[in-house]
């Protein structure tokens, strides 16, 4: 028999299938372009901005990595903005020579520090890097050539999780691999919707044109990308340019980080919702904003269905168990065990199909990006990722929307 919940399930499956197919088509049609970098024709002046707030554990290594970047030294400046740190960050950065250090009081959000640094910078290209990110020495050489195209407003890099040890870090490692790959594929639709703070490069003139980073937004790296796209500029991604970053090592830190990402996403979506399906904003209006909104809806719909099916099963079987106890019966038909026989139908076909496609998606991501998750532990990580890890996302989304709509806001730190 067919019910409303069945229709909702089929809708969820259709949309999930649509985006999976879209990514596979993008991959097969652009295979040769994924690792490609344009030819470097000139060395524009590059200013690197590192906002640092209580980053004593990592800032030294980050600066050392920046000093090791292969790029003409007379075309490069490193600006560290000590954003009111109360730990040893200030003393550590002072030990480095050849960098510009600016002190400012903390105003609660990273965007303040970034804008502060950008206004002090003299570069044609601004590179924003988190104080716990470690770019490879060739990452500028592999990103700057994308600015040959004057319509390119920003270039982003492959963000890789540095030395994942705990399970939660390995899961994030896998997640980042897939983010890297799908972000590159979105480039072919002019749909890169975030320029991560780990390492992204911007044309300074465009940052000035769009009014810099939004100081009210807690995910300024999403918001700035949306403003760039909205103005009709392109965002490109350099797959071979790699930057390593630390990720949360505990569930609590991870949870808080994701809430911040979600709330920032809501802030950005609401700010730009007027662009949805407006063709004058090109792919931004026709793809990026709808894609974002649909992903929220489909995530909550999927989770709702999951809860409904799970809840119904738990309710039914717990009732059967309780009543079996009351009526002194065993809870199963001992002659047939019919409750344990699974027959395939349209739902199981789609469910199984989507799972297999997701698995293929993960394996292809690993292959294309050249990343590895070896051995039995790698298989466990992939399975936990596909079954448990991504199931938590809608919970975070719901909790974040609750926090966001309660109007309590969220602090960067």
């Amino acid at each position: 028999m067919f019910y409303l919940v069945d229709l909702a399930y089929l809708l969820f499956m259709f949309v999930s299938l649509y985006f999976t197919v879209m990514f596979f088509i993008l991959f097969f049609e652009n295979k040769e372009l994924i690792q490609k970098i344009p030819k470097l024709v000139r060395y524009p002046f590059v200013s690197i901005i590192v906002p640092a707030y209580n980053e004593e554990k990592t800032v030294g290594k980050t600066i050392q990595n920046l000093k090791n970047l292969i790029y003409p030294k007379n075309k490069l400046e490193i600006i560290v903005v000590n954003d009111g740190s109360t730990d040893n960050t200030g003393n550590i950065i002072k030990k480095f020579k050849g960098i510009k250090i600016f002190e400012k009081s903390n105003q609660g959000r990273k965007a303040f520090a970034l804008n502060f640094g950008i206004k002090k910078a003299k570069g044609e290209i601004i590179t924003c890097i988190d104080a716990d990110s470690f770019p490879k020495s060739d990452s500028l050489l592999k990103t700057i050539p994308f600015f040959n195209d004057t319509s390119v407003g920003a270039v982003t890099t492959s963000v890789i999780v540095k030395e994942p040890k705990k399970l939660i870090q390995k899961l994030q490692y896998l997640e980042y691999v897939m983010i890297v790959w799908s972000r590159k594929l979105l480039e072919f639709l002019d749909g890169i919707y975030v320029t991560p703070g780990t390492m992204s490069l911007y044309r300074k003139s465009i940052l000035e044109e769009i009014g810099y980073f939004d100081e009210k937004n807690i995910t300024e790296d999403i918001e700035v990308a949306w403003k760039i796209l909205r103005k009709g500029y392109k965002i490109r991604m350099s797959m071979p340019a790699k930057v390593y970053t630390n990720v949360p090592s505990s569930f609590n830190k991870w949870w808080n980080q994701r809430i911040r990402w979600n709330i920032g996403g809501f802030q950005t979506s609401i700010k730009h919702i007027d662009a949805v399906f407006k063709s004058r904003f090109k792919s931004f209006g026709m793809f990026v904003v709808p894609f974002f909104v649909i992903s929220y809806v489909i995530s909550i719909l999927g989770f709702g269905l999951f809860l409904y099916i799970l809840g119904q099963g738990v309710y039914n079987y717990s009732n059967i168990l309780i009543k079996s106890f009351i009526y002194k019966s065993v809870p199963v038909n001992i002659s047939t065990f019919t409750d344990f026989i699974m027959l395939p139908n349209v739902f199981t076909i789609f469910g199984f199909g989507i799972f297999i496609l997701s698995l293929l998606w993960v394996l292809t991501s690993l292959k294309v990006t050249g990343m590895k998750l070896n051995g039995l532990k790698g298989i466990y990580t992939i399975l936990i990722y596909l079954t448990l890890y991504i199931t938590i996302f809608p919970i975070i989304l719901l909790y974040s929307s609750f926090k966001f709509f309660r109007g309590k806001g969220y602090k960067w730190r």
Partner: protein
Amino acid sequence: MKNNIFIKTTVITVIIFILGILVGLWLDNNRLNEIKDSITSMDIEWNDARLQGIFYQKISNQSSSCEDAIKSNLEFNNRIYQKGIEIEKSENINKFTPEIVYEKRRYALLQLQFWSNSINLKESCNANYSSVVYFYSFFDESKKIDQNIQSIILSNLKEECGNNMILIPLPLDLSISTIDFIKSSYEINSTPSILIDEKTVLTGIQNREDILKYINC
């Protein structure tokens, strides 16, 4: 180029989706056809068993004809009971074949004929098995859990009692006038209910011990 991607994605997704639905339909129809075939074959078996009983009574001696008729009746009960479980499983799984309800009605009619034959055999041959008719609701979702429990208790009891008990599950709400008549005759107003040996009506979930008070297991 970009529009091209969306068009290609839509076409491929729709094709895959339709293929998925078609496979689902094919599986549902296969199950339905299997049920149809087995109900048809049971219908033939039933007519054969019934005619066999009539001819036995006409041409054989009374005691051996009764023995054979009871035996074939009990064998038929076991087969029809197993088929009922298969139909029930398919009812829950199939999404595209509402005509499974018609098969359920055909099945219920077969059960009624079997029950009627069992009553006749009890009268004419003094058969000593107990007949347990289990009434349940096909459409009422709120009854599912109670009915599930009752059906498990009865199935396990049937397993325990073997040929000393015949179990006849009948859906109350499939618009079958014979069932409506039985319903009003025995004043069966809610499900799950059990009618034992055409005399005792038990309403609500009954545990094994309660039922055993009325049957010879």
